[in-house]
């Protein structure tokens, strides 16, 4: 390992050694990027009309993941990096759930609207004018 060349990597290695039950520290960057993608995707689908709360949770977790990653890098904390990774994964899962929920709500709203229209139209047809 290039512990001697890169100071912070050395610290990370130390942190790794210190965290008893830690597995290899994941870099959270990919997970954060995936969460950003999922949130953008959900925003494009106008999710906030139907699942605003879920989308807000996703954004908060993404912020949390970024902050945790930044802090973990400053502190050379492998544990912090792992937590950042998990927060980012949860942000992505929240955004995907928000999108799925919004799709369902939107489609079910369309079903109700269509049923009402059909009822109105067949009612005016059948009933005497």
């Amino acid at each position, binding site marked *: 390992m290039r512990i001697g060349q890169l100071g912070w990597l050395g610290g990370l290695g130390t942190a790794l050694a210190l965290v008893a039950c830690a597995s290899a520290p994941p870099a959270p960057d990919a997970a954060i990027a995936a969460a950003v993608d999922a949130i953008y995707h959900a925003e494009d689908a106008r999710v906030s009309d139907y699942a605003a709360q879920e989308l807000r949770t996703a954004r908060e977790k993404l912020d949390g993941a970024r902050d945790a990653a930044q802090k973990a890098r400053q502190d050379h904390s492998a544990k912090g990096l792992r937590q950042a990774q998990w927060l980012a994964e949860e942000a992505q899962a929240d955004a995907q759930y928000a999108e*799925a929920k919004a799709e369902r709500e939107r489609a079910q709203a369309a079903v109700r609207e269509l049923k009402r229209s059909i009822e109105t139209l067949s009612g005016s047809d059948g009933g005497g004018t």
Partner: protein
Amino acid sequence: MDAVAPRLHRLAALLASAAWLNACHSAPVKEQDLRQARSELAALEADPNLASRAPEAIQEAEAALREAEKQPSDATLAAHLVYMAERKVATARALAEARVAEDQVQALQAQYAPLEQAARAKARAQIDQREQWLSQQLADLQPQQTARGLALTLGAALFATSSGALKPEAETRLDLVADFLAQARERRVAIAAYGEGELEYGRAQKRAAAVKDYLLGRGVDEERIEVEVAISSEAPEAAGAPPGGIRLLITRPQEDDTPAPGG
């Protein structure tokens, strides 16, 4: 760096809420939550209407759930995995239900389209019918269809030579026009005449006024009547008026102030 501080507070709250305070400490996994997620996924997979609708999401949920069911000793990781599994199970169900509802939308649209078409056709037929009926009311007067509406003429012979008063035949015709206007309240009537030279102009004015007075007497609102007497047959406002006679133009309502048909 300053901006980071408040965000770190939020992070702290998040971590607390996710029960991540005792990381690396073997705490009991929320087995209750795991069982709940497992039974929800099983219910989704067992539902013949839903299971086939979101196979990939179900697979993802299954994988996440298996991962969580390994119950790692790291309590933080365990809680994270349970959360992921719960979210993915919920996502799979929402997606499957969305697909079912979308299919319903398609089926309902197929049902709605012909109904809507029929309703439109019916409304259009009602308008056409009324239009036809209205023009039949005036058929005896042989109206001309013009871009602005129905045009009819009252020839010079329908007026008394000297006074400009209406002859009975003219009154019979104007009765039809008044009846028509009583039926078609959205329409207006424009009375046009012309007279070249002082004498003829004065006569044209008298005749136009006589027509207007007669219509007023038959109950047509004054604001629906417009009178236009020109000094020349060339004047556009007198277009179509016969020499010494009157042209009536029953105008169609403008597109933007058309009242509801059939009233």
